[in-house]
């Protein structure tokens, strides 16, 4: 198991936002986290990434508690929100900075970015803008591309499809599907179509608890739709 969640709880005041007893994710799985607003998805992701301290329990990444050491940062890449972007840099500067943290040279980074010409649709590179001047959708693209550039073993994305134009949504799905197998992906989404399309396992959460956890098949979308319309 590459990721294990044990007895994880986050309590704010008298409200339990996340309460997950046991969750195991095997290497190579593509997991989709689905739930309405306030279900605790982002809080859960933040605990996976050691950004907030759990009230109880632990997150183990390759058997090591993420709170205790930083080894997980070597093989985990993520993009939750714009707070992860250093928005006063140009996209190039940002990619080079992230690359340097993983010992990638400037040449490595530009070679990598070349593959993403299509994904960026010619709007990101050499645009003469800082990241903060881009639209939300384009900021998302920068964050996702920077995460993928790290060649992570674990990829965590929070609502990657939000704010993207239809073409890019389809391209992103393609990218994520291509990477399956060698990478464990954990994404959350409100778009049931996309998430059932990309993921081979769906976890449905409500009020911080896992309600359903199942492998996707041809009936999954219907099941989810009926659950959410009820």
């Amino acid at each position, binding site marked *: 198991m590459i990721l294990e969640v044990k007895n994880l709880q986050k309590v704010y005041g008298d409200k339990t936002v996340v309460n997950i007893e046991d969750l195991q994710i095997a290497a190579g799985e593509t997991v989709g986290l689905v739930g309405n607003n306030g279900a605790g998805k982002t809080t859960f992701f933040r605990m996976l990434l050691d*950004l907030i301290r759990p009230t109880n329990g632990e997150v183990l990444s390759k058997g090591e508690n993420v709170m205790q050491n930083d080894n997980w940062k070597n093989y985990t890449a993520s993009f939750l*929100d714009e*707070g992860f972007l*250093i928005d006063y*840099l140009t996209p190039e500067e940002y990619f080079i900075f*992230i690359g340097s*943290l993983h010992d990638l040279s400037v040449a490595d980074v530009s070679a990598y970015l070349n593959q993403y010409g299509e994904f960026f649709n010619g709007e990101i590179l050499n645009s003469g803008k800082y990241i903060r001047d881009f639209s939300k959708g384009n900021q998302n693209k920068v964050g996702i591309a920077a995460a993928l550039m790290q060649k992570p073993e674990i990829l965590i994305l929070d609502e990657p499809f939000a704010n993207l134009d239809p073409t890019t949504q389809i391209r992103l799905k393609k990218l994520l599907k291509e990477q399956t197998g060698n990478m464990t992906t954990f994404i959350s989404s409100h778009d049931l179509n996309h998430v059932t399309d990309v993921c081979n396992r769906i976890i449905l959460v409500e009020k911080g608890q896992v309600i359903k956890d199942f492998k996707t098949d041809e009936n999954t979308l219907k099941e989810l739709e009926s659950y959410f319309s009820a």
Partner: protein
Amino acid sequence: MLSTFLSHQRKSFWRSRNKGGSIATQIIIGFFMLYFLVVAVGIGFGMTIFLPKIFPNQNVMTSFNGIILYYFAFDFLMRLQLQDIPTLSIIPYLHLKIPKRKIINFLNAKALFSAFNIWPFFLFFPFIFIEIWSVDGALVALMYIIAILSIMVFNNYFVLYLKRKSITNVLFTLVGLAIVGIFAALEYYKVISIMVASNYVFSEMADKPYLGLVFPVIASVIFILNSNYLRRNLYVEELGSKQEKKVSTDYAFLNRFGKAGELAALELKLILRHKRPRYSVFMGLFFLLYGYLFYKAPFIAADSFSKMIFAAIFMTGFSVLSYGQFMFAWQSSHFDGLLINKIDFKDYIKGKFLLFTIMCTITTILASFYGFLSPKLLLLHLAAYLYNIGFCTVLVLYLATFNYKRIDITRSASFNFQGMGATQWILMIPFILIPYLIYLPFGYLNRPYLGLMTIAFFGLIMLFMRGYWVNYIAKRLELQRYKIAEGFRE
């Protein structure tokens, strides 16, 4: 309309998120203002008695005339540092059916609500009513009042104009600073005298009262200039629609410091690309003029460093202090990003130390022009420099781990109290007190140079312990990371 704006302002103050902090700051500022007002009233009524005592060899009118421009020169410098640019976040109003003229009028009217515009009433008017009225008659007294109020208005809008301009243009700030510096130097070396000039101007006016009408004309000119500038920039500046091509840059000289160097380069870009941090670092250049106030020839001759050490430490360390007081919060918008990436806390702290050392070194080199006054001052600066990079940096970074207040760095630049908290006030106390405590015993024993050496030595020891401090602060940051990140997310 004006009252609606005012009520919105009041609401935005009372309903702001960090209300506690801003009220505390307002109260402290209020106390200072009250104190100065009491002093001003005392001086104003006592002027007939004080003036002959301070300037025994000249007549009271000459002294009074002499101090007017002097006062306003200081007033100008003080305003330059302390006066707020009145901001009403105007964006929500711009698209509504409100004429621009009204918005500008509001901004202009609000600008007059400043303590600087109260003092002249208390300082000068008693003397005018008591002395001038009875000697020169009502017309001359009236002209004095008009002249003084006009200069006040002139200063008020001129400073705002300069501030508005200098935010958009760093060069402008540097030129202004140079001019003030040159005048200070000329006054210091007695080449020109503001007092003589002031006396000349006002005694002419007392002779020919109609000359006093020149002052309101000048004041109106600057008022109109300021309003026009506002009118033209009401959207350009605030909505940031000025589009220029942004380029990627690389600071090669920082690369040799490895990961810490890259983090320092990242922060250097942060400073250069945002108004508020840039302003707080460049404020350090203004404080380079402090030496003119504190480095008096008799002090230098007598080696009484205790009277000058404050200025030396303040000048060489001000940028570190003013930028460092909000440390980590500058990065609040992307602090999460720093945490999840492969960045070692030690490298992160080392990067900060590197940046501080660079800032301190630059200001110290710039301040070394005081060496022309006396080479002794260079020794003083060296001690202050070592104290700052050795101790002040550690202090600033240690206290930074207690700072959980988010700052939005894209917001207005000058005198913005967002993110102010107890930390900032606490910071000042040891920063000023410690060098005095070290120096004082040597000062009493009349061993000034030994005192300087001890301060320098203290700084050096702290500098050699930097490795230890890096580890210590990195540990603290690691402990505090959830709390800091949570505060910055709000």
